[in-house]
C-alpha cells in the first residue's frame, strides 16, 4: 500500500479551482517531485497534506490513516514533517532551539513535571539533544549551533529548516522548494542530503522543486501540475519530454 494517497482531491477558493481532481500515490522509500509552472498548485498540495486547507472533495490518507479527520497540529504526530517555501523558522531562537522544537511530537512529560524539572524531564531533554546533535552532524550545522536565526544567511536557514523537519524523525518529509535561492554548491549539497535522507534514514521525500537538474538527479518519480490538474506522471525523463508539459512551460509550437 502506498504511504501517501491523494484521491480525486479538489480545492476551490471561491471561483478559483486551485487543485482539480488530483490523484497521486507516494510509495514508501521514494523521492517524489511535484513540478509545474508558478501558480500550478504545488504548494497548495503541501498545505492540503499539512491540513492548513481542507479540500472540497476527495480523500487524503497517510499509511492508512485519513488525514482529513485531523487538525494541522495532529499531522506531525503521524510522522509527517515539512519545510516552507519562504522559510518559517523561529527567528528569535537559536539553531539548537529551532531543532528542539522539531522534537515537540516526541515529548512525554506534562506541564507540572516541566515546571518542577523532574528527573524524567531532564532525561527526556538529554534524549532530545542527542537526537538533535545527530541532525546537526548530518547537515554540518555545528558552526551555527548557538547562533540566532535572525543573523544567519539565507542558505544556512534553508538547511536549518530541513534540519528542524528531520529532528522530528518523520516517515514522510515534505520539502517545499529546497533549492530555491541556493548557490550551485549549496544545491549540490542539498542533492547529497536528499539522497542520504532516503538511503540512510529511510525517509520518504515529497518535494516541490523548479530546478529540473536537481529533480532529475534525486527523484524516482515526478508529477507535473498545471492549473491544479495533473499533466503527466512518470520518471523525470518521461515527464520532461511529455508534450503536455512542454506545452505548459513553453506554449504551443505552431505559429498562430
Amino acid at each position, binding site marked *: 500500500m502506498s504511504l501517501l494517497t491523494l484521491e480525486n482531491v479538489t480545492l476551490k477558493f471561491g471561483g478559483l479551482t486551485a487543485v482539480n481532481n488530483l490523484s497521486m500515490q507516494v510509495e514508501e522509500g521514494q523521492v517524489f517531485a511535484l513540478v509545474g509552472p508558478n501558480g500550478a498548485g504545488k504548494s497548495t498540495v503541501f498545505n492540503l497534506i499539512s491540513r492548513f486547507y481542507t479540500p472540497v472533495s476527495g480523500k487524503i490518507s497517510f499509511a492508512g490513516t485519513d488525514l482529513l479527520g485531523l487538525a494541522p497540529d495532529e499531522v506531525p*504526530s503521524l510522522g509527517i514533517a*515539512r519545510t*516552507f517555501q519562504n*522559510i518559517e523558522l523561529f527567528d528569535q*531562537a537559536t539553531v539548537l532551539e529551532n531543532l528542539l*522544537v522539531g522534537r515537540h511530537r516526541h515529548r512525554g512529560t506534562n506541564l507540572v513535571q516541566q515546571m518542577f524539572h523532574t528527573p524524567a524531564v531532564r532525561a527526556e*531533554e538529554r534524549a532530545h539533544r542527542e537526537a538533535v546533535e545527530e541532525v546537526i552532524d548530518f547537515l554540518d550545522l555545528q558552526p551555527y549551533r548557538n547562533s540566532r536565526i535572525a543573523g544567519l544567511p539565507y542558505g544556512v536557514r534553508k538547511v536549518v529548516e530541513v534540519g528542524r523537519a528531520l529532528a522530528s524523525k518523520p516517515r514522510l518529509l515534505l520539502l517545499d522548494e529546497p533549492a530555491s535561492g541556493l548557490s550551485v554548491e549549496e544545491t549540490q549539497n542539498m542533492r547529497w542530503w536528499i539522497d542520504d535522507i532516503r538511503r540512510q534514514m529511510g525517509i520518504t521525500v515529497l518535494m516541490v522543486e523548479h530546478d529540473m537538474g536537481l529533480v532529475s538527479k534525486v527523484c524516482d518519480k515526478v508529477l507535473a501540475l498545471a492549473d491544479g490538474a495533473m499533466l503527466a506522471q512518470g520518471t523525470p525523463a518521461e515527464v520532461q519530454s511529455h508534450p503536455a508539459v512542454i506545452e505548459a512551460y513553453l506554449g504551443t509550437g505552431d505559429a498562430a
Partner: protein
Amino acid sequence: MRIHFKTSYDDDIRLFEDGWKLSLYAALLALMVALPWLIDDFYLGEATNVLIWATCGLGLMLLTGQTGQASLGHSAFMALGCYSTVLLMEAGVPFIVAFPLAGIITGIVGGLIAIPALKLHGVYLAIATLALAILTDDLIVMLEPWTGGVGGKFAPPITVFGLEVNRWSNPAAWYYMALIVVLVVTLFYRNLLRAPMGRAFAAVRDSEISAQAMGVNLARTKTIAFGMSAGITGLGGALMGLFAEVFNNETFTFILSIQLLMMIVVGGLGFIHGAFLGAIVISFLPQALSIITDGIGSNVAIPGLEIGVFGVIMILFILFEPMGLYGRWLKIRTFFQLFPFARKDMFRRQKSYLKTERLR
C-alpha cells in the same frame, strides 16, 4: 574573552551555564538575603515593592515576551489574585494556603478568558484585554458585598507558621516573603523555558504556522501561556494589595496594566532580567522624581508627572533601544567579551519580507 567548553548535554540544560555564572547569582542572592541588615526600613519597603512589581512583570513577560501575545488587561488578574487571597483568608483559610490557591484560581479564570480572547491577534487582543481591565474596575464596585466596593477593604493580618508578617512591625519578614515568592516564580519560569512547553511558547511567538506544522497546538499553548501568566500576575497583585494594606477598585485600574506593559518593554522584552530591571525603574521613578522636584524648590505635586515621564522613557526606549535595559547590557557585555571583534550590527533586527502569507 571567556571560552566555554561544553562536555555534556547537561551543560546546556542546567540553570547556570558555568561556575562563574553560578557564583555571580549566588552572590546576588546573598546580597538580597543580607539586605535587611544593610539598608533602613524605608528602603527595605522599596525593595519589597521592587520584588512585587517583578513578580507581576514576570507574569506578563511570560505572555508578552515569551509567547508574543500583548495584554493590557493584567490589572484584572492582579485584582482577582488580591481579592481572592483576602476573601479566602477571611473565610478562615490560612495565608500559606490561600495565597497559592488564589494564584491557581486566577490562572484558571485567565485560561478561561483566554479561550475566546486569543482568537484575536496583535492590537485587537490588546484592545479586548483593555476592555477586561476597565470592566474589572466596575465589577469591583458592583460586587460590593464581597469586595467592599469603592470603600475598599483592609488587608487581614498575615501569619505564616505562627509568625506575623507586618510591614510596619516586621518589614524584614515582608521582604523575605516577597523574595521567596519571586524566587519560586523565577525558578518555575526558567524550568518552563528549558522544557518543551517553553519552546512551544517561543514557536508560537515567532511563527504560528510552522509551530503548527511541528505539532504545537496553538489554542492549547496560548491558553496555557495566558493562564500561567494570569496566575503569576495574580500572585503579584495579591502581594501588592496586601502590602498596600488598603485597596479598592482604584488600586487596580487599567493604568496599572499599562504601567506593567511599559515596565517590561523598558526592562527588555523576552528576558527574565528585563522584568526585574523594569521593576527597579518603575519602583524608584516616583522617588527620583520627588527628589528632583524638591531639588528645584517646588513643593506642589504635579499631577500626571510620573506617568508622563514614564511615557517619555518608554518612547525613547522604543526608538533607541527596543531590546530594553537588559538588551543594552547584553550589547555592552558582548562588546567586551568579544573585544575587539564585536560588530555594531550584531544585534540589528533583520526584517524578513518573505513570510508565508497567513493561511485562511
